[in-house]
């Protein structure tokens, strides 16, 4: 083993610095690696003391020179077929995690490979077999591709791993306590694990194909949607293509996305707005796309508060779409009686009156950059934050808290909710939900 790593070190010495060593092993014929700093030792054993009512992937406990440690079978944990061995002895890697020692069973243990951590590539969301959350990277060495497992995440103490991972790793795995009796039945636990893994995989795929991010803004919907998706698709729940991803997200869209709001929906939204407002009324409409939403808003606000000085700031970072917004025309059929007062005949079909057009400022702007805004009365941001990376979502909600006037109204997508619920009062009118700033 030592010899192999030295030889490889020599080969790579010219181009790279070796600063990461991993113990490599196989599971179902594929190569995996674990950071050597986490590995205490390697051992073979056959007799494990069975623990009744433990999860199926817990093979039992083992006496390692006086220390009792739990033994996890990686193949069962990851739903991989187990290799039949002639003898009953199993290959174990004994891991020293931050909080405890645990043993994992693998098919066969290969060698120690030294690599440069620069060469570790982030995992691709389309990896099969093992959920992406458990992979810290992929590296090629000597013509073989190794998947590096993040054992701290798989088997570590749940307090030390981030909350999303700990939700997915069942409680029974948190330490030597894993061998204790579990509350739920064995079968129940595995299917829950399976479902969490499937949802996690779908979440990653949605980011890849449609840059849709699962976050507290839309978590509830993602979970509910998974159940209906499973009914629709049966066993084949994974999203294999962009079309699949679009189909999965189709019910996410809020009513009247990409078209004018009908009068009924517009009036429900209008019911959240004050009727006695005077002076300037400032509205922010990030993610306005081609502008349908902004014009609908302009008309409904003018209807409700004819005398206010209305200013709608409409932003989008899709140049092609927003370029068409200032000159948007209406088809021959009026989108609803709400709009009739605000349309004039133009040479290319019906157009909005100047007072409506002048009330909207369309800007090509990326809202994850700095937002310079006046104090706002209303923010309409439907199905927009869900397409922004979670770490930036927080910044946007901070901006909202800062710039929205007290009593100001926030309208999110139908399936979205604010990440800072403490700052908002939920208001509802026959199915349409908005949030009032406290």
């Amino acid at each position, binding site marked *: 083993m030592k010899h192999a790593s030295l030889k490889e070190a020599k080969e790579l010495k010219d181009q790279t610095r070796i600063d990461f060593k991993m113990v490599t092993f196989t599971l179902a014929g594929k190569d995996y690696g674990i950071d050597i700093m986490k590995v205490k030792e390697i051992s073979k054993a056959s007799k494990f003391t069975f623990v009744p009512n433990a999860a199926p992937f817990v093979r039992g406990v083992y006496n390692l020179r006086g220390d009792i440690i739990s033994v996890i079978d990686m193949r069962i944990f990851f739903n991989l077929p187990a290799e039949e061995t002639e003898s009953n002895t199993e290959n174990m890697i004994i891991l020293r995690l931050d909080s405890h020692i645990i043993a994992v069973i693998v098919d066969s243990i290969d060698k120690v490979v030294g690599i440069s951590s620069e060469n570790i590539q982030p995992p691709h969301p389309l990896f099969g077999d093992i959920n992406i959350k458990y992979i810290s990277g992929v590296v090629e060495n000597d013509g073989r591709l190794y998947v590096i497992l993040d054992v701290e995440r798989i088997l570590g103490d749940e307090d030390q791993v981030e909350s999303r991972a700990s939700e997915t790793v069942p409680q029974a795995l948190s330490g030597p306590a894993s061998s204790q009796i579990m509350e739920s039945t064995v079968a129940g636990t595995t299917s829950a694990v399976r479902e969490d893994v499937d949802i996690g995989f779908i979440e990653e795929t949605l980011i890849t194909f449609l840059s849709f991010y699962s976050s507290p803004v839309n978590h509830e919907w993602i979970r509910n949607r998974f159940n209906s998706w499973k009914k629709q698709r049966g066993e084949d729940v994974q999203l294999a293509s962009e079309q699949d991803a679009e189909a999965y997200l189709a019910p996410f869209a809020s009513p009247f996305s990409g078209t004018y709001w009908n009068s009924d929906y517009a009036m429900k939204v209008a019911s959240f707005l004050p009727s006695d407002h005077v002076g300037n009324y400032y509205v922010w409409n990030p993610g306005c796309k081609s502008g349908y939403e902004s014009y609908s808003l302009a008309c409904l606000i003018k209807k409700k508060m004819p005398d206010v000085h209305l200013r709608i700031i409409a932003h989008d970072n899709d140049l092609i779409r927003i370029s068409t917004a*200032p000159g948007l025309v209406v088809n021959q059929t009026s989108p609803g009686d709400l709009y009739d007062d605000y349309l004039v005949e133009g040479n290319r079909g019906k157009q909005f009156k100047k007072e409506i057009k002048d009330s909207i400022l369309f800007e090509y*702007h990326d809202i994850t950059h*700095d937002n*310079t805004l*006046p104090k706002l009365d209303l923010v309409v941001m439907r199905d927009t934050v869900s397409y922004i990376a979670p770490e930036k979502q927080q910044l946007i909600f901070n901006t909202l808290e800062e710039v929205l006037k007290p009593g100001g109204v926030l309208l999110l997508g139908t399936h979205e909710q604010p990440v800072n619920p403490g700052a908002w009062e939920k208001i509802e009118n026959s199915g349409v939900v908005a949030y009032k700033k406290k």
Partner: protein
Amino acid sequence: MRVEYINPFVEAAYNIIKEVLQTDVERKDLYLKKTTQPVMGVAALVGLAGDVEGRVLIDMSQETAMKIASTMNGEELTSMDELVKATITELANMITAQAVTKLFDLGFKFDLTPPSIITGENMSVSNADVEALIVPLEMPQGLVEINVAIRERM
């Protein structure tokens, strides 16, 4: 940045460069950049005021600047001398002026400041709270970026 402003700047830059260099210009995708951006080496700066506040920066490497100045003057220029600087300044002036004229026709009133030119290595430019629209134009002489950062007066 207001949508109506984008096209005048893109068209003006494209037309002027194509005309003065008598060459093919390839327009690349526009994009937005956040506050601090690196500057390639030669930057001609024109300030804007009026309905908006902000500036236009015409940015290129020293090598590109010398090649463009050589083409425009019809002689080979190999150092960053006064002639090269004056030529690039004039180019910036022409582009911004044409854009402002187009904008005036659309009903927006802008005033502009005389251009100034900045040269050096490892420079960057920051504008508090305004993101910049970058219009990259590729031509045989090299890459020129029109960097527009303006915002409405609220």
